[in-house]
């Protein structure tokens, strides 16, 4: 029967070309708008550390003075260097790392290539195993090297290609600012999206090109970047070990819920001790959020993108209402035909099925056209200058979602018209013939 209904549907399309084209176009536009915005939203709101994001936690303390204090407010978004170094020394998590972003001048060894500026990250040894950073060559540095303020560097695959043509560069020398570093590792293709570990820089940007031990970077007074919030006199150097400034991101890995609550206790105690020692003034106010909570708190998905998603769904809804109306018109226009079928013995259910097959076929056609429109929409998104633009691609899952959405939506739109069509009474229609 299905084949026959499909045949009938195609015949009906041929009879009402304009009306059918309108319905297909409406569904296609709705699906196109919806899938474009949904794909962008999905890319931007994804989990950057699948499988591990629930075990990585961002530490927040409240070290500022009472100046500007509002009870109930969130603590500082970053920690002081003093606190980060103290927590790092005490090593209470499974793994932990302090970090900040920056920029370094890279002077290539070969003559003829002009020096250039690279984004850098100053961090501690656990960064690499904690975030499961994939290595193309070599490894990260060790905690010993952190303590020794070693002149070692890990570089990205992109920088390795730019400087060494992609060859094995472990052990080679790299001139950064005015000092020489030894390369110990090259990171393979890795782009956590969003770049969750630092919310100050471009949240959907590419990986930094140079990674250096934090200790070394401070010895050499390398350029830092990102937000810094100070509340007292830092004596001229806001990055000194005791400056009253928050500018460090601190991450800790905790393998279980018990460890999480134990660490939260530890932070509370640490905060109390600091206040007892006169360093902190505010009441204890600590936070320990996992990756997804931290991204949520930072509203990492741009509000324009969320708005576009709503707009896409609203558009689809209008298109569907439109399709319901047109299908209704189309089916009822054929009342006499339906009357004949009913009189010849077709049950109401069969009429209902026939109508749904027709609606579903419109949906399939709309889905195919809609897929084309989504690809066009995503292409347009990729032409935008924002850093996430290049990530906007349709994957296989979304491809199937497009068709599923189109068919489900059109079947849904067909329900009411099909219901009305099957109510057609055979006698009345035959009489008026």
């Amino acid at each position, binding site marked *: 029967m299905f084949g026959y209904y499909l045949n009938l549907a195609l015949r009906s399309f041929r009879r009402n070309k304009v009306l059918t084209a309108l319905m297909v176009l409406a569904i296609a536009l709705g699906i196109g708008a919806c899938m474009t915005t949904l794909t962008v939203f999905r890319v931007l709101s994804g989990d950057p550390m699948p499988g591990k994001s629930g075990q990585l936690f961002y530490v927040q303390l409240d070290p500022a003075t009472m100046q500007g204090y509002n009870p109930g407010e969130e603590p500082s978004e970053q920690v002081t260097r003093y606190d980060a170094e103290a927590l790092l020394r005490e090593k209470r998590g499974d793994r932990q790392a302090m970090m900040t972003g920056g920029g370094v001048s890279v002077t290539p060894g070969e003559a003829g290539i002009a020096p250039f500026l690279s984004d850098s990250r100053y961090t501690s040894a656990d960064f690499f195993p904690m975030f499961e950073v994939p290595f193309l060559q070599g490894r990260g540095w060790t905690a010993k090297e952190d303590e020794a303020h070693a002149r070692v560097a890990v570089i990205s695959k992109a920088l390795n290609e730019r400087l060494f043509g992609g060859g094995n560069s472990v052990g080679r020398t790299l001139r950064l600012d005015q000092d020489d570093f030894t390369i110990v590792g090259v990171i393979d293709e890795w782009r956590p999206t969003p770049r969750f570990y630092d919310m100050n820089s471009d949240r959907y940007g590419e990986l930094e090109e140079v990674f250096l031990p934090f200790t070394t970077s401070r010895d050499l*007074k390398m350029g830092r970047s990102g937000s810094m919030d100070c509340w007292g006199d830092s004596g001229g150097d806001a990055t000194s070990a005791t400056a009253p400034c928050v500018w460090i991101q601190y991450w800790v890995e905790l393998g279980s819920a018990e460890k999480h609550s134990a660490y939260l206790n530890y932070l509370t105690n640490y905060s109390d001790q600091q206040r007892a020692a006169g360093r902190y003034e505010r009441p204890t106010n600590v936070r320990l959020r996992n990756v997804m909570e931290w991204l949520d708190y930072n509203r990492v998905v741009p509000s324009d993108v969320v708005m576009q998603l709503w707009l896409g769904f609203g558009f689809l809804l209008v298109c569907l209402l439109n399709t319901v109306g047109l299908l*209704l*018109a189309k089916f009822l226009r054929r009342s006499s035909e339906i009357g004949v079928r009913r009189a010849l013995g077709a049950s109401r259910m069969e009429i209902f099925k026939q109508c749904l097959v027709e609606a579903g076929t419109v949906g399939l056609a709309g889905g195919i056209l809609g897929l084309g429109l989504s690809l066009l929409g995503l292409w347009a998104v990729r032409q935008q200058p924002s850093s996430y633009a290049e990530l906007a691609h349709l994957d296989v899952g979304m491809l199937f979602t497009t068709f599923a959405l189109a068919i489900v939506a059109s079947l849904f739109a067909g329900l*009411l018209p099909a219901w009305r069509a099957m109510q057609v009474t055979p006698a009345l229609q035959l009489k008026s013939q």
Partner: protein
Amino acid sequence: MEIRPILSTLLRHKTAATLIVLEIALTCAIICNALFMIGERITQVNEVSGIAEDELVRVQLTAIGNDDNAEAQTRSDLASLRGLPGVTAATVLNQVPFVNSSWNSGVRLSQEQTQSTLNATTYMAEDQFVETLGLKLVAGRDFEPDEYLEFETVNGTPGSFSIPATIITRVMAEKLFPGEDPIGKTFYSWGEEPIRVVGVVEHLVRPSMQGGPAQREYTMVFPLRPTYNLGGNYVIRTSPERRQEVLEAAVDLLRKNGPNRIILDENTKTFEQLRSEFYQQPRSMAWLLAIVCIGLLLITALGIVGLASFWVQQRTKQIGVRRALGATKGQILRYFQTENFLLATIGIVLGMLLAYGINQLLMGKYELPRLPLYYLPIGALALWLLGQIAVFGPARRAAAVPPAIATRSV
């Protein structure tokens, strides 16, 4: 025109009528909100920065490592830049408008105050600051030569230091000292000492959108000469047609004047380009919203055409009877127009309630401002017009039905 018969016909086609009403309502609601968001973005894109944008270029550079000689180097760079042909003024800045990197500080009116009155951005100025940016002083004066301090020196000295003077924007002055003459007034921000307002400029925006539109011009200028490696912004003023030439000459000169630095080519451009890139996001969002609005109107119009045609076809015999009983073509035409007007009106009333609801939702979730009421009549008018245009074709076809139809199948 008699409305009763129209209503009773509509009541017999409840489903189709409801569908059209719902579609109009939803379209109206989305369009009101979208138009409002477009309006907001247009305001943003067209905002006044206060600087002579079409005469300015920016060169950004960075030292390789630390430069112990930055003060002297900066002085030498500036002297050479000012000597370039076509250059009317040049200065060095810690931050520039239209770049998302900024210095911000809380501002208090008294030393004891625990909550800041507002948070303002801080431009550090060198001698030609006002002249280069083309700022318009509306009260007070520019800094005196003896008021300038070297930022490096001030920053390197632990303990208290005092900033001898400040220039602020009119918006900030009105917020701090409403209804009063701000000249000579003081506030607290950097350090422990009060800072005295000596001048007020008409406009000067913050570099970034921090604080949203309301805080766009909370801007203060301190007479602290920055060095070139503090942000690395050389800003040069020239005539609009010589910008490219001056930009190239400046880059050349800076390369030769101190070899141990990197010119950041991708950030070295005219302010016109910086501005255009800065507003790229709101601009494309406005376009997108506009396209969605047009799409929605089109879909809704097609829906109205579709259903109206169906009705006309269904009622052909009725129309024939009416015509045979003496109704004119005009009356038939107006019948369908009135019917559409009624449906559109119900849709619009629902749509306005929905528009308001959507706006409330967005206000709660995305800190959007309240939808101004004047967007509602705009949306209503658009949909009334749309309905009338869409129904005109089918209505004309209805009017063309000959009275003879009434007799045909009887």
